[in-house]
């Protein structure tokens, strides 16, 4: 996943790459995801969230729908 100054440069990147526009994430949302995913990564019991947990994590920062569902086959 990449960083962009604005939605405009996202659209230009998607056009240049011939890729569909996907959801955009604010820095505040990204930080909350990063903290949830990684704040315990250097401790012995750390693990990746399971699929259902991932859906809840994304939902907690306002990211919902099949794009954010690791079990979805709608893509």
């Amino acid at each position, binding site marked *: *996943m990449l*960083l962009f100054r604005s939605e405009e440069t996202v659209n230009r990147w998607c056009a240049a790459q011939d890729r569909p526009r996907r959801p*955009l994430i604010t820095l505040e949302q990204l930080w909350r995801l*990063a903290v949830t995913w990684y704040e315990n990564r250097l401790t012995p019991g750390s693990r990746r969230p399971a699929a259902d947990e991932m859906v809840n994590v994304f939902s907690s920062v306002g990211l919902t729908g099949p794009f954010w569902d690791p079990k979805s086959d709608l893509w």
Partner: protein
Amino acid sequence: MSDEVDTAVKMELYRITAERGRVPNASELSEVMGLPRNDVIAAFARLHRRRLLVPEKRDPARIRMAPPFSGIPTAFPVEAKGKRYYANCVWDAFGIAAALHSDAVIPASDGYTAEPLTLQITDNEPVPQAYVAHFAVPAAHWWDDIVFT
């Protein structure tokens, strides 16, 4: 037994990475831990199956990704704790600050124009900017090609 080895390898790998700013290879871990090198490589493979590490495809003794850290230099350097780390993507750049529980400066760039865009984490929050992250791949397919994702 292998679970204990896997956890020990993972913890030592992350400890060294945090301390030195670079991801150690199997030989370094073998020496530090007193384990046979092949046992460390086998642990890398098991941890990969659990989606915790990504060894290099052509050299299973080296780690390409120990999320959020990258085993190779990337476009997402992270300055924290007086060291330079490398992240796999912008999410992982924030993830390094979160994992280290540290302020951080991330000299990144726009994914299309390459314009420098500096991110900063201060006091456990990102310094506000109107920048955005774009996820090109849906969650169900992140691990189809995790290096691209």
